[in-house]
């Protein structure tokens, strides 16, 4: 029997913090996850991403604060919250005693749902593991073991799915494959929270981004807002002939000489760009024009650097 939702919000954190003795792993966090979104948690190693996920999924318990999953408290009503949550752990684990098919059947039982061989086979097929259905788990490659972990996390059809660095050490093709799977899950109504080092991953998948550093949640923004806020696109014009050290006065004042053949100016719209171009082409041969867009990576690096600088 599926668990009835007491609250439409998949996840609400109120002042959730975790410390180990004197060491604070996570400073109190307030966070609400929206239904059906993909939320990416970004941060360097040891920032507290996994700690946060562990507190929600049951691997650890928070020192302060309360976590609610669809209205159920993760400490008092853990049997309900764990039925609603799926976790793909960061570290690959496998039970050498069982085959992938057996693993999934056992996992269904452990999650308290009726073991369903058809569903187990469908999950194996989705994760391209059908040909290894009855192999010993230890003979699977690293990528296959990771896909098995994802299948295991889905056996009970969780409404909130955590992916803790799902594509660490995974090749490009499989990574794209996994992204498609995640998008498919989101389309089917699953709320997804993922942690990642690959900013490309967050940029491609996430609706909202949270940045965490040294146990502190620095910001939570929609990806679009974040990119807009930190938008600092640059126009870059490459000339065919070297530029003089001192630029002629005929050139637009916004342009700066980056290198002997490269000029740059901040992006100020398409009209301004046409003006810039005509001012350059009046005296020099224009070889190439490009617009460099800020990547989430640039934003992220800036944010972390700023946070470290201010001692946050």
């Amino acid at each position, binding site marked *: 029997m599926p668990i009835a939702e007491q609250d439409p919000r998949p996840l609400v954190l109120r002042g959730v913090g975790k410390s180990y003795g004197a060491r604070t792993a996570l400073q109190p966090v307030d966070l609400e996850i929206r239904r059906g979104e993909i939320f990416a948690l970004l941060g360097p190693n040891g920032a507290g991403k996994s700690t946060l996920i562990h507190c929600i999924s*049951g691997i650890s318990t928070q020192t302060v604060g309360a976590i609610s999953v669809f209205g159920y408290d993760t400490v008092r009503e853990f*049997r309900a919250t*764990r039925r609603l949550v799926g*976790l793909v752990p960061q570290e690959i684990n496998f039970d050498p*005693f069982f085959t992938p098919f057996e693993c999934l059947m056992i996992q269904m*039982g*452990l*999650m*308290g749902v009726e073991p369903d061989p058809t569903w187990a086979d469908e999950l194996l097929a989705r994760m391209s593991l059908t040909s290894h259905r009855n192999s010993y788990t230890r003979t699977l490659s690293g990528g296959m073991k990771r896909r098995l972990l994802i299948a295991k996390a889905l056996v009970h059809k969780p409404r909130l799915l955590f992916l803790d660095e799902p594509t660490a050490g995974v090749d490009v093709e499989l990574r794209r494959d996994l992204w498609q799977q995640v998008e498919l899950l989101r389309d089917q109504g699953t709320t997804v929270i993922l942690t990642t080092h690959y900013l490309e991953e967050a940029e491609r998948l996430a609706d909202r981004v949270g940045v965490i550093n040294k146990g502190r949640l620095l910001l939570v923004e929609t990806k679009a807002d974040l990119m807009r806020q930190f938008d600092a696109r640059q126009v870059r014009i490459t000339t065919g002939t070297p530029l003089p050290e001192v630029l002629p006065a005929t050139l637009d004042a916004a342009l700066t000489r980056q290198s002997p053949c490269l000029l740059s100016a901040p992006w100020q719209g398409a009209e301004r760009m046409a003006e810039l171009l005509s001012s350059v082409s009046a005296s020099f041969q224009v070889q190439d024009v490009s617009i460099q867009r800020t990547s989430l990576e640039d934003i992220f690096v800036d944010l972390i650097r700023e946070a470290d600088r201010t001692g946050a």
Partner: protein
Amino acid sequence: MTSDVTGVNRRAMRTLFHKEIQRFAKVWLQTVISPLVTTSLYFLVFGVALGARVGTMSFTGSDGAGHEVPYGAFVVPGLMMLSMISNSFLNTSSSLFQSKINGTLVDLLTAPLGTPEILTAYLSAAVFRGIAVGLLVWIVAGLFTGFALAHPLWAIFFSVAVTTTFAGVGLLAALWAEKFDHLSIFPNFIVQPLTFLGGVFYSVTDLPPLWETISRCNPVLYTVSGLRYGILGVSEIPVMTSAVAVGAAMLIVLIICTIALNRGYGMRR
């Protein structure tokens, strides 16, 4: 609906129990036959070969009267206890410790399983294995000494209570241990010496007074004596004394296990 949210998750508990049974049943040569062979060798050397020269074992029973039992039959309950104790201990300790090491403990921590489910499933599977091996030892020995079972209910009580206790000790050992070496402390340095000195091969009432007193502090003595009463119908220690000692030990271990699991000791980071 409320049972789904707060009540014991029976399906999850059953699954965990079956998984633990499968885990040792899949490697039955190592988990069932190997201990059976070891214990049978003890029995053949001490019980049959040595027993042929010793003849009968005379000892003072709890009723104050002298008893004579063929030596071969005398050692059977102790050897059964030895195998039941070590196999129930090994089942919980190795299973839980391995999942700690290979990371599959995550499956347990993120599943809708509470302390009652985890404790019941792990201990039942270990009790099952311990008693399976104990029963096989009883059958092998029975071929030589006859199938004695004087008080079946007492035999069952002591078998279940002792395997439950040591399954619990195994669980606590696995929670506490950080490396395989830690785990081997229990069987090699605690359980085996206590068992061998717990009146498996001799009667403690025939020891010099000082040694008899020291032996009476050995908890394993009460398990051996209790099972001896269940199987042979006679024992050195009154059966009620053994029952209280064994029952109290089980209760204490179960309470400590419950507290440890509730706190997530050795499991939750």
